[in-house]
Each structure stands twice: as C-alpha cells, then as structure tokens.
C-alpha cells in the first residue's frame, strides 16, 4: 500500500498478532505498544502515519492518548471499541480520533478502514478537493454546484454547508457535536434534531434509496460518516 508506519496500541496479544499479520501482508510496517504510556513514547519514536488504538487500555482512557497525540500529530487515529460504549466513542472522536471499528471485526473491515484513513492522511491536491464525486453525484465546490445524473440539485444553504463539511472528511466519523459546531456554529442540544432532518434531506436528494443510504451513513448514537 505504502511505506507508512502504523502504531498498534492494544493490550491483548492475540489481537495484536492477527492485526499485525494482516497489516504486514499489506506491506505496511507495524510498531506495537501495550499501554497508553508506552504508546505515547512509541509514537514519539516512530512518527506513525496511522495509529490503531484500543479503547479499553489498562492504564486509562483512550481519549487521553488521543488528546496528547493530537498536540503534535495530525496522523489519523482508528479506535477499536466494544459495542454499547457510545459514550466512550463520542469522547474519543471529539478528542480527535478519526474512525472506530467495533469488536469483533473482520480483517476485510480493518483493511478497508486502514486504507481509507491512509489515503486521507496523505492529503489531496486542492484541485481534487474542490470536486467530489460519489455514486451518481458530482459536487463542485468552486462553482457551488451539485449535479445528480448530470442534473442540477437544489440545496438550501444549510444543506450545502452540511454536505461540504461531510464531503471534506470522507471516511471520518463526525460526531453530532462536531457537525453542529461546523454547520450551525454551536453545539447546543436545542437544534440537534435539525442535524438529523438535514442529513435526511441530503439523503432524499442525493441517495438512490434514502432508507438504505450508501454515502451518508449513520453511526447510531455517535454521529455520521460520509463515504465516497
């Protein structure tokens, strides 16, 4: 894939074993750590291009690691978490993590997420960022134009702003708070239902089947993920 170094912070040896195996088969270099503290030291040493972080580390909350790590690195962070801990997921995503994977996960899912994050981590040239294509939809941010099957789609200013924020972060899980902050300018609970309504609008205008979306995905209880 590329020569990026991946830092794997996970306390369970057997999980490290198969994750490492899968990543190395993809031609990635992997460095390991067992605790949050060790992970921080290792991150400083190896300057990873991506961090895979277990949320249930023995020496504390994963969001502490992310907050420390974000102080000096913008490399993507993929979190491994157990289901039914939406609260922790929101915490670590708000702290700056990019995506999460619910345990147990297959190797296929893991590699797909890792690839997407590494692609994003490399950044894209501006010309490419100004134009986003997904499914039958073409968004041209320089022209403020949204086309579906070649036809113009009418969007309200807020719908457009929401689309722009989501499209600028493909593959990243954005929490409700982050989206409200970015689109409405405030993350108060008063208008959180608007976010859901506007995502619904985007689905109805841009998805083939709004009930089974393929691009504007719901991360229940956490937020949304835009997928190209």
């Amino acid at each position, binding site marked *: 894939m590329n020569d990026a170094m991946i830092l794997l912070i996970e306390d*369970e040896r057997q999980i490290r074993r198969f994750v490492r195996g899968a990543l190395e088969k993809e031609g990635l270099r992997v460095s390991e750590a067992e605790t949050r503290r060790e992970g921080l030291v290792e991150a400083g040493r190896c300057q990873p291009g991506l961090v895979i972080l277990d949320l*249930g580390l023995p020496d504390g909350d994963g969001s502490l690691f992310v907050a420390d790590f974000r102080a000096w690195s913008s490399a993507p962070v993929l979190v491994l978490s157990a289901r039914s801990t*939406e609260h922790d997921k929101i915490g670590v995503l708000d702290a700056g993590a990019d995506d999460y994977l619910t345990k147990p996960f297959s190797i296929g899912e893991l590699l797909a997420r890792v690839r997407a994050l590494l692609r994003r981590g490399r950044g894209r040239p501006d010309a490419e960022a100004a134009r986003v294509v997904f499914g039958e939809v073409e968004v041209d941010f320089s022209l403020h134009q949204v086309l579906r099957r070649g036809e113009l789609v009418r969007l309200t200013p*807020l719908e457009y702003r929401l689309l*722009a924020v989501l499209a600028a972060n493909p593959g990243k899980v954005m929490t409700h708070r982050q989206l409200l902050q970015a689109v409405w300018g405030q993350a108060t609970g008063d208008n959180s239902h608007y976010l859901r309504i506007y995502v*619904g609008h985007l689905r109805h205008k841009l998805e083939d089947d709004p009930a089974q979306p393929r691009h504007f995905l719901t991360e229940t*209880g956490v937020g949304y993920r835009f997928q190209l």
Partner: protein
Amino acid sequence: MPLSILLTEGRNCAHGRRYGLAVLACGVVALGLLPFRTHLDLPNTVMFFLLSVVIVAVTVGRGPAVLTSVLGVALFDFLFVPPRFSFEVSYAPHLLTFVVMLVVSLLVGQLTAGLRLMASEAARRERVAQGLYGLARELAGAVAVEQVDESVARFLQDQWQAPCRLLLPAPDERLLAVRERSGPFLETASVLLTQARSGLRPLRVPAGDGSGRHVHALPLAGATRNRGVLMVALEEGDEDIGPLLEALAALVSTAVERLHFVEVAQAAQVEAVSERLRSSILSALSHDVRTPLTALYGLADSLVVGSPPLPDEARDIAGAIRDQALRVNGMVGNLLDMARLQSGPVHLRKEWQPVEEVVGASLQLLGKALDGHPLRVSGLAELPLLDLDAVLIERVFCNLLENATKYSPPGAPIVLSATTGASTVELQVASGGSGFPPDKLDRVFELFERGQPETAEPGMGIGLAICRAIIEAHGGSIRAFNPPEGGGCVAFCLPLGNPPPIESEALVLEGEGA
C-alpha cells in the same frame, strides 16, 4: 395597648382578688397612720396614700390603682381631715387638696401601671424571641422531620400552651401528620388543609370542640412549591401573634425544604453510585468476554483470507470457527443487553429523530444477514420525528428483522411499514413463513421463550424480550400476531409526544452561492 395584656393579667390574678388587694392596701395605710395622726402633718399623710397608689399600680395594675386613688382620697378625708369621721369639708382649701391629691394619685397610678405593663410586655417579647432563636438553632441542626415536629411542638407549648400538628405531603401528595398529637384539630380539617396548601396566607377556623380555641392553618411555602401545613390551636387572646406565626411557618418550611433537598441529593447520589457500579460491571464483563472473541474471530479470519491459501477443507473449518465466534458474540451481546435492561431503571438517551434514519442504520448493521430476503419499506419518510434512544430502537429493528429472516423461507419478502395514529406511531415488521404458533402469541416476548423450540435455528429466546423491555421503557407497547394473509408480524407503538418545531429554510436557486 393590646387587650391581650389585660387578659393575660386577668388570667394570672382573679379580678376580685386584685381589687381586694387595692382595698387592703388603702386600709393598711389608713390604719397604720391613725396612731401617728397627731405627729404627722396632713401633707405627710397624703404622701403615704400616694405611696400606696404607686405600690398597688406596680404590683397589681391599672384598675386597682384607680380604686386605690379614689379610696385613698375618701379615707384621707374621712379619717384624717377635720372634721373627722365625716365627709364634710369645713375649710375650703381642703377641697383643693382633695382634688389635687386625686389627680396626682390617678396620674401616678396610670404612669406606674403603664411602665409596669411595658416592662412585662418587653419581658414577654424577649422570652418569645429567645424561644424563636432556640427554635431556629434546633431547626438548623435537625436531621429528620420528626425532630422539626418535636422542636416546633415544644416551642408552641412553652410559649402559648398551644397544641400543634405538622402535616407534610406523602409521595402520593396526601398530607400526613408527622406525628399524631391530641389537640382540638377538626376531623373535617381536610378542606381547610387543601385551602391552606394552595394559598399563601394562613387560615383560621374555630376549633369546634367548645374550648374556644381557633385552629390556624399555616401554609409552609417552599422556594419551588408548598411543603406542607402547620396547624396551631390558639386561645382567643393569643391571636395577635399572627406575624410571629408567619415567621414560625417560614422557619419550619425552610427546615422541611432543606431536609427534602438533602434527601433528594442523597437519593440521587446513591442512584448514581449504583448506576455507575452496574454499568462498570457490565462494561468490564463485556470487555472481558469480547476480547477473546475478537481474537478468536480475527485469528480465524486471518486463516480464511491468508495467503498462500489453506487447503479448501481447512479454510472451510476456519470459516466455520469464525462464523461461530460471531454467533457467540451476538448471544453475549443479547445477554448483556438483557442484563442491562433488567438490572434497574433503563436510562434512555432520548433525542428527537426520524425513524427512517434508525431503520437505515439497522439495515446497515445487519448487512449481509438480510441477503436473500427482499425488503419492502413503506410509510417511513412520512413519519414525524420521534423522541427515542436511537441505539436501543436500532436494537429493536435489528432483532425483529433478524427474526424475520430466520423464520421465513429464503426469498420471502420482509415488509416494514409504519402508520401514524392519534397519539402513537405503529411500526410493523411482517415476514412470510408459518408465523408464530397461535397458542404462544402472548408469550413470545417472555425471556427464554422460543416461538418454535423444535427448529434448528439458533437463538435463546432473548431477542423479543429485549425488544419488549426497550419499547416499554419508551412508554410504548409491542405485540405479535399472524396476519390473515399468512406469515408472522410484530407490531410496536411509540408515543408521538410533542416534536420540537422545525423552521423550514428557503431554497437557493441552482448555481447561486450558498
């Protein structure tokens, strides 16, 4: 001057006896002075009579002092002024003496009696004030309403011998006495109580037991709501202490309110601690079980996708291990969910959201599990926003859809439909197949109850029980039935509630800036 003071004195010393004392005082002075009549000038004699008036005024009060004045002048005239033993006045200036003596006596008597009254009034007020201070101190330190009740009863008993009764609302809002005490409290007082509770001013009604007392019902006004009623039975004369009673009511309501909030804070703390404990036990359990399952699943998966590929049979076995690990994970998930739902009050993270989105997320989560069953969805986009915990309702849809695929023949469609009623929204998940056993329709939502125990389909009979627990926590209801057109159907209702207003936004023209 308050009438009550006179009455208070009247109670302490019977009228007759007080005036008798006045007469006695005059008699003693007159008889005492008689032997010295020849040695004393008339003015000196007058002084002694004035002295007797002062003494009477100080000791027994105003009325007897008046009597002493009049009687003194009469005795002075009769016994000491010549001609003696007659009221005749032979020397005209003596008449002036009598008048001046009477006026001075009356004045001195009135002033002295007034001073005495003021002193005793001040002393009484000080006693009440001391009592209030003591009461305030006791109430500030009270740790239970029984103590408040005790202190107030003692205070009222000490000050006015007034029986009282403190009534506080029970959880069902009925007023109950903290402790029943004997007293002239009407049994029909409930009307009075409701009035007192809803008002701010004290109410007053005759006690109705012939004691001549009046029952005062003092509302205990708290910061946020009424905290109860204090009933005090006062005697007729004590009724000018209204402002004092109101101060007392304010003290008591502050104390009762403080105790109430202490109790609320403690209960909240206990609940928070037990909630934290419960959720940390469940998370630890979840983590401990999922970690080896994740390793098992991932390791088996790495054998399946590994290169060079394993021989076919070995790869099949690895795939089977992987799938079984996933199934165990699903069961563990269900068991933990059930434990979470059953271990105490369910904490819903409710937010207003479109049901369509929750269904979409459930379908996304189920993924391949739905393959082979065409899904027909209707009526979802038209639903209003509902106030629900998306994570839990997603669980309900997942369980119902998963059940529908499990118990219907391959290729049979699954129908998910929604209808809006007057106060609820009904959602239905219908599938083909043989439906639910008719004799078990009302039992399928019970824990560990399986619709078709003889089938080879995996499951423990937890899924529907979880659905019921979640729907009921949302204030809804769930039922199963076999529609006439065949197959089985689970329908659940969620309350509509009052969705927040939605301001629509104008469209921008195509191509125009956003």
